[in-house]
């Protein structure tokens, strides 16, 4: 029988520990498929975050470094600057990238580090049990905004792509979602473009993927898809925020 669906080579056979309905697994798979298709597995170094994806180094079958919370872009910089022939990507959540690691991501983009960032925005701190994130929506209930996030107290969710788009160093910025098959395909295209640009030495690329955390959103997986479509996409519009053509 012909095999029509198989595990990408760039993933190990370790079982994901992610919750049912979590999108981390889908996004891992897309990254691995892209690495396979571009033939990059053998020269890739992945930087794992602190967050639910902390064990990414067990899942990606590439050399990996586990970074401190938020510091992945700096670690990636250290790798890329010493080994320019490697393909370097960081995989980061919204607490990791947009809160504690805001300085590192902004400056990596400003320097146009030739790296690729996979930014998983699930509007919450998943690993630590559902606290408010810098991307938590106004009104969204979390364990540290039990009555819903209020702008008077904690301001407004950060739109990372829009923010980084002001930097001449950012080469490619896109926000996508994986809540339905069409969007999964588009996410893969964006990830592929991001890595392709790195291969061509074009500079900093980031794909922000809106992602479900059914566990801490306290939703069924299907409800969580609706939350992405109706609530998250309303505040975080999908699209390309910087293309290599408009970069610099």
């Amino acid at each position, binding site marked *: 029988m012909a095999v029509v669906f198989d595990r990408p080579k760039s993933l*190990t056979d370790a079982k994901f520990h992610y919750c049912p309905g979590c999108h981390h697994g889908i996004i891992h798979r897309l990254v691995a498929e892209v690495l396979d298709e571009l033939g990059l*597995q*053998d*020269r*890739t*170094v992945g*930087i794992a975050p602190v967050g639910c994806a*902390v064990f990414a*180094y067990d899942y*990606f*079958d*590439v*050399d*990996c*470094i*586990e*970074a*401190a919370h938020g*510091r992945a872009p*700096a*670690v*990636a*910089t*250290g*790798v890329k*600057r*010493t*080994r320019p*022939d*490697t*393909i370097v990507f960081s995989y980061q959540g919204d607490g990791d990238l947009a809160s504690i690691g805001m*300085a*590192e991501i*902004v*400056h990596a983009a400003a320097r146009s580090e030739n790296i690729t960032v996979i930014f998983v925005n699930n509007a919450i701190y998943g690993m630590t049990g559902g606290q408010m994130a810098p991307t938590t929506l106004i009104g969204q209930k979390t364990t540290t905004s039990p009555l819903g996030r209020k702008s008077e107290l904690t301001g407004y969710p950060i739109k990372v792509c829009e923010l980084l788009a002001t930097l001449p160093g950012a080469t490619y910025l896109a926000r996508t979602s994986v809540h339905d098959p069409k969007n999964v395909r588009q996410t893969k295209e964006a990830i592929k473009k991001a890595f392709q640009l790195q291969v061509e030495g074009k500079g900093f690329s980031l794909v922000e993927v809106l992602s479900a955390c059914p566990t801490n959103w306290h939703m069924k997986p299907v409800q969580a898809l609706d939350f992405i479509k109706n609530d998250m996409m309303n505040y975080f519009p999908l699209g390309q925020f910087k293309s290599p053509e408009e970069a610099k």
Partner: protein
Amino acid sequence: MSKVLMKGNEVIGEAAIKAGCRYFFGYPITPQSELPEYLSRRLPEIGGVYLQAESEVAAINMVYGAAATGVRVMTSSSSPGISLKQEGISYIAGSELPCIIVNIMRGGPGLGGIQPSQSDYFQATRGGGHGDYYLIVLAPASVQEIADLVKKGFDLAEKYRNPVMILGDGMLGQMMEPVDFGVETSGDSFDKSWATTGKNGRKKSNIVNSLYLKPEELEVHNRELEKKYLEIKSKETMAESYLTKDAEIVVAAYGMTARIAKSAVDMAREEGIRAGVFRPITLWPYPEKELNAATVSAKGVLTVEMSLGQMVEDVKLSLNGRLPVEFYGRVGGMVPTARAIFEEIKRMSEKFGGVK
């Protein structure tokens, strides 16, 4: 190679290059800025990379990433910046990566001042960040010794896969002295099979990591580190003893303070007081045996530091009650004078010593 006249801070940079280091990540801070400035000129000339990071936090994480790829890499800062680096240093120690971290100390706490100090001794010798770990801490006392210890530091870092700290002060950094860099070295002879450079045909991926969620596994990792630390303690201590053989009063001091202490001891000898200087070169591991050997004739030990008294604790621990230990310190960027140390030696010799 012949001797050249150079400034301490720049010698750190050139010695690193002579040891095969081609990568430097840092953030400006007084009183060590001549070092990054020097390397920002020199490294591009020889195909290396100098990168000014957005903060010390980022700089040490760039070092972490670079070290993970198996190259020789260095960062430098001064006290407030070293505090910021502690998280990254802890990760580097936990992941067992080699690198050199330079701390040209200034007075604290807080923003403190910019004048020489030795008040980061505790931080340097007790790990500094979270978790059970040690840095190998080297304390040069001359420009030539800077060159020698930077070179040796890279070898120690790779031999033990452990971060090494060069601990100096602003005086040493600013001082001009002749220096001979000796032969060039590199890290090529050390095993790098663990480095994350892409699999390149390797079967298993390499992972650089300090996370062990299962307590049983973390304990094994901690015990492995302990084994390494014990080996370093037994093999790598270094110290200098100056006129200690017959000394009744031994002054224990490191770095620039030890040089001033030597002048004080010379003054004491002229007055017939049998005094000497014990100078630890490794602050961790502390040269316990060497200190005991240097104080066989002693009646008392005077510890002198540019702090409120930090190394004095290691002196007491090493002597374990065998001798009275007293302390003299200046702080805030004030430097002890040879005269003041001499007065202390004299006072102690009257208190503990025999008649001259």
